């Protein structure tokens, strides 16, 4: 049966896999002899290969960023509201690329992949990867695709950190860096939340020191708790109040002690936790929370982020959301301050929103208008050079 998608949807998409045999040296000192990256592309690369846009995904995201899969025509990619013909990231103008990061669990090499040395899943033996490692692996994918310079690299949250790192590590390969709802590094409180999430997984009896694949189980309870905790940090007090209030599922309080879900918010969090366990791997969750904790581009530059940005050549657009307390606007302003001190081209917009950290996935008018204004400009540059 043919599917009918909205006219501004890119329609059916399918992932591709790039396999790499050249070893990748990692920041942790180890290296991956071979690895694969799963990715999707939308739109067409132009003749002088100048219209490529890289989307970097966040903690629980993946390469399926827009469009629909044949076998799941109801659920589009995670940022479909922003990517497509006529959308802010316009696939008529740009060749859009997104890959599942190393260490992920959606097809790129990660803890669930088979370790060629042991012929068993890597599990907890998968090396810790950093944002810099990701950027280096993405650069190899760019080489493979024939992209020497990205017109723009765009990411929210952990994705924004990758966009920043790209501009620092490969200054000549990034024309525009769009850093959304990110931070220059994690705060002690950010790390604390990650630590509680990790402890939830580590203390699950089904975790088996990360070798749960061999026991035919998954640490469901631990991963679910980790996700529920994480989810609270993605929302805001006002947003939760608006969405759930103190509404009861059954309309009255039972004063019971069996801790079934009584309030809507409890039911919502449990649902989010359950759904996550079915689509995500606990070792990947542990790994990527560590990747977040270790991210600190200033560390290589005397703890001065502006020195790190001295080498960048990209134009930056930094966006934050008022009710985001995971990576609050003050954290984005630290990035902007460092960019200004480094004399970089940079703009900053603080979008009023009650959606908390999750706002970076929402089609908020000022947010999308800002992206559209920036990317229209990027497209004009691309076309001026191509002409």
């Amino acid at each position, binding site marked *: 049966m043919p599917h009918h998608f909205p006219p501004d949807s890119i329609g059916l998409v399918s992932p591709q896999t790039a396999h790499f045999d050249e070893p990748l040296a990692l920041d942790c000192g180890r290296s991956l002899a071979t690895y694969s990256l799963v990715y999707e592309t939308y739109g067409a690369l132009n003749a002088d290969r100048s219209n490529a846009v890289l989307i970097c995904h966040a903690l629980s995201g993946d390469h399926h960023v827009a469009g629909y899969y044949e076998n799941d025509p109801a659920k589009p990619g995670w940022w479909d509201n922003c990517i497509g013909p006529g959308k802010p990231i316009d696939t008529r103008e740009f060749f859009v690329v997104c890959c599942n990061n190393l260490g992920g669990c959606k097809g790129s090499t990660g803890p669930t992949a088979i370790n060629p040395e042991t012929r068993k899943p890597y599990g907890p033996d998968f090396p810790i990867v950093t944002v810099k490692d990701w950027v280096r692996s993405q650069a190899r994918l760019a080489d493979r695709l024939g992209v020497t310079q990205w017109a723009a690299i765009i990411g929210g949250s952990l994705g924004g950190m990758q966009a920043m790192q790209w501009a620092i590590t490969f200054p000549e390969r990034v024309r525009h860096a769009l850093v959304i709802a990110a931070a220059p590094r994690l705060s002690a409180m950010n790390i604390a939340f990650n630590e509680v999430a990790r402890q939830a997984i580590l203390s699950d009896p089904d975790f088996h020191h990360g070798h749960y694949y061999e026991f035919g189980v998954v640490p469901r309870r631990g991963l679910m708790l980790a996700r529920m905790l994480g989810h609270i940090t993605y929302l805001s007090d006002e947003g939760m109040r608006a969405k759930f209030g103190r509404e009861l599922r059954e309309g009255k309080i039972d004063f019971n002690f069996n801790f079934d879900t009584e309030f809507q918010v409890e039911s919502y969090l449990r649902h989010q936790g359950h759904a996550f366990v079915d689509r995500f791997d606990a070792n990947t969750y542990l790994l990527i929370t560590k990747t977040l904790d270790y991210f600190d581009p200033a560390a290589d530059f005397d703890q001065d982020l502006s020195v790190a940005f001295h080498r960048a050549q990209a134009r930056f657009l930094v966006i934050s959301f008022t009710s985001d307390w995971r990576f609050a606007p003050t954290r984005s302003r630290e990035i*902007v301050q460092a960019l*200004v*001190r480094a004399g970089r*081209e*940079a*703009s*900053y*917009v603080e979008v009023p929103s009650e959606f908390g950290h999750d706002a970076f996935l929402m089609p908020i008018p000022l947010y999308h208008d*800002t992206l559209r204004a920036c990317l229209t400009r990027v497209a004009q540059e691309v076309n001026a050079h191509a002409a």
Partner: protein
Amino acid sequence: MRPELELISEWIRPGARVLDLGCGDGALLAYLRQYRQVSGYGLEIDAANLVKCIQMGVNVIHADLEAGLADFGDSSFDYVIMTQTLQAVKRTEELLDEMLRVGRQGIVTFPNFGFWRCRIQIALQGLMPVVKTLPYQWYDTPNVHLFTLRDFEELCRRKRIDILQRMVLDYAHRPHPGPQWWPNLLGEIALYRLGRA
């Protein structure tokens, strides 16, 4: 607006680093970038203006001037500019101080409340003045401080701010000779270049 941009740009050294407080749609920065090869940023609070600046490729930073310029270091810009904004901020003195802390020089433009038409309207008609450069009614004006050239120069003297240059314009932002002779009576818009030793 165009002649005012030209006049301001004549005061700006080519290649300078500029911060434009309340930069609006970014027209001044775009002009200075083209004709004076400046680099820099605009600060703006209005959402529609932020989007316009980004569309024009002008660096714009979302900020509330009333909160001061704490994000910017001492003497980190050659010029800090404030066009038609000083009369609309509450903390006038603090902002002037911040301007001359962050910038080596400041450039300020504002509508002159001492213009003869203003004087006549309030003196003879007993009404709050409505003129081309101050087009608002008393109840819908964004301006919170109305002042004359003499008021401003008195404040500068008291705050030990040096007036390096002054230009007085008519409503169409043209520097006619008349207003230069009798600025506080015939001038409708004032341009100042300021410094602090």
